[in-house]
């Protein structure tokens, strides 16, 4: 797969034309919902004329279609926003453009990023880059697949409960979910505000670190952003204490997944790091916490889609109540409705204490358990997902089964920790498998330097 350096100091127009041609050749994967061809070529010409310069001058990229960006509609893969033309750009997109990067298209996702397979897209699923009968993972499935297919050297995604890490694992690329608050969410369609993060897919850890360095930092338009702390580390880390989370390595986890993670742990040991089995006992309950807290936040965040100010408005309605109800029924896919209604349930009077409040207390216990481990360990590792990419349609009939694919990614999300997915080989059937590296808040650059140091081993 190509790296960002392969596109630097080249003719930008040619870079963009090549990327667009590759995108068209790979239409059968349905990884992209739109191409921003005209705007991309205009910007490429400006780069070639020397009017736009920067660390990414002339480098093509793709954004998940829940990022507001110019040149094509921002749909969030929903009928609700099918023809929504963004009046502004996401801060992350603006920062990449300021460095000369060129957005060539918008990637498919589960509608409103609700899902773990990209099968909930209102415009049809994305297919896995290695096996077209299998899912891309999700919700940032399209971004993972365009990176894995070498259409672009990096792509932006969002990760609320694993939406970057899991598709990265399923398609054999690097995926970064940073510390909560690292990257501004201004201009990105909100899902669950207490765990939504912006990150990137790349073909290698050094490229991922470069992108994170560019897009991170405080933004007055997102009051949850942290003062800029991300500083790329180029040297390999000194010997670290690393904990392998044993609850993630139970017999229910696919044998190939456990084998690849154990091999990665052995390589870390050979490289001089200390590896111990560690326990995070509350981890079995984190999915239950997640599927209370996140739907609650979704039900609030998606209340804005009312058919009034923007987005889909149902035709032929007589009253305001009908307008809301019908526009939302038509604009949302079933999974959106499921999550909104679960959220309404757990937040409703009489149930709030038993569900939402209990989940937020349990979340405190999860954070405490992580903090306890980080007193001894620098990094925690485990699988990204219990299995390699599953078959298209395999889990669509059973929401709980689909949710279980998130079981290893939601803990870092609920605790606001940085976590990255790095390729760790393939299953016996040739499907990619990733390993997950988690660290303390603000240890993002260290995790990436560790991943980089292991790439050639």
């Amino acid at each position, binding site marked *: 797969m190509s790296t960002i350096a392969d596109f630097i100091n080249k003719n930008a127009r040619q870079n963009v034309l090549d990327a667009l041609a590759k995108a068209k050749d790979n239409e059968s994967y349905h990884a992209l919902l739109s191409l921003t061809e005209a705007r991309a070529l205009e910007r490429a010409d400006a780069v070639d004329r020397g009017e736009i310069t920067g660390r990414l001058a002339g480098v093509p990229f793709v954004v998940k279609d829940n990022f507001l960006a110019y040149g094509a509609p921002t749909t969030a893969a929903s009928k609700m926003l099918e023809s929504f033309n963004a009046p502004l750009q996401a801060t992350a997109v603006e920062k990449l453009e300021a460095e000369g990067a060129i957005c060539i298209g918008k990637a498919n996702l589960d509608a409103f990023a609700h899902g773990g397979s990209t099968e909930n897209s209102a415009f049809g699923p994305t297919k896995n880059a290695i096996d077209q009968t299998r899912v891309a993972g999700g919700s940032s499935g399209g971004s993972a697949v365009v990176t894995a297919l070498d259409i672009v050297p990096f792509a932006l995604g969002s990760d609320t409960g694993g939406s970057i890490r899991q598709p990265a694992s399923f398609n054999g690329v690097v995926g970064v979910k940073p510390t909560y608050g690292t990257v501004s969410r201004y201009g990105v369609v909100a899902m669950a505000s207490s765990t939504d993060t912006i990150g990137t897919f790349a073909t290698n850890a050094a490229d991922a670190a470069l992108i994170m360095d560019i897009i991170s930092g405080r933004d007055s338009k997102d009051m949850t952003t942290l003062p800029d702390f991300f500083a790329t580390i180029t040297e390999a880390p000194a010997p670290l204490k690393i904990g392998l989370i044993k609850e993630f390595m139970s017999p229910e986890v696919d044998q190939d997944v456990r084998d690849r993670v154990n091999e990665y742990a052995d390589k870390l040991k050979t490289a001089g790091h200390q590896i111990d089995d560690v326990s995070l006992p509350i981890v079995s309950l984190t999915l239950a916490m997640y599927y209370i807290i996140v739907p609650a936040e979704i039900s609030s965040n998606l209340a804005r889609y009312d058919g009034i100010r923007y987005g889909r408005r149902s035709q032929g309605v*007589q009253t305001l109540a009908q307008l809301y109800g019908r526009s939302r029924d038509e604009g949302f896919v079933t999974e959106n409705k499921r999550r909104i209604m679960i959220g309404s349930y757990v937040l409703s009077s009489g149930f709030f204490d038993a569900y939402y409040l209990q989940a937020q207390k349990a979340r405190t216990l999860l954070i405490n358990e992580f903090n306890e481990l980080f007193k001894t360990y620098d990094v925690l590792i485990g699988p990204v997902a219990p299995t390699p990419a599953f078959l298209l349609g395999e889990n669509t009939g059973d929401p*709980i089964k689909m949710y279980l694919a998130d079981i290893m990614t939601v803990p870092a999300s609920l605790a606001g920790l940085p976590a990255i997915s790095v390729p760790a080989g393939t299953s016996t059937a040739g499907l990619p498998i990733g390993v997950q590296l988690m660290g303390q808040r603000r240890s993002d650059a260290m995790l990436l330097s560790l991943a980089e140091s292991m790439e050639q081993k």
Partner: protein
Amino acid sequence: MTQISRDDVQHLAQLSSLALGDDEIDSLRADIENILGYVEQLGGLDTSGVEPTYQVTDLENVWRDDTIDDYGIDRAALIALAPDSMADQIKVPKVL
């Protein structure tokens, strides 16, 4: 385990401003019942004396100056996003 009826689904749909089609009510009823059944395992966890998590940043009191910022967005561009508008205003069906 919590039982969810069709009426419960209708009530939740109303709280959520969703005009569900009849065909969707039955499948959503079963899904919601199963999901609530799954998350109810949290009820067995002892959380007495535990503070709920309010946020996961370590930020406190993020202040800004009380000045008007239009974020560089044009009013006309925003009105143009509305499905229906008239005389620079967003148009809606009769409310009363």
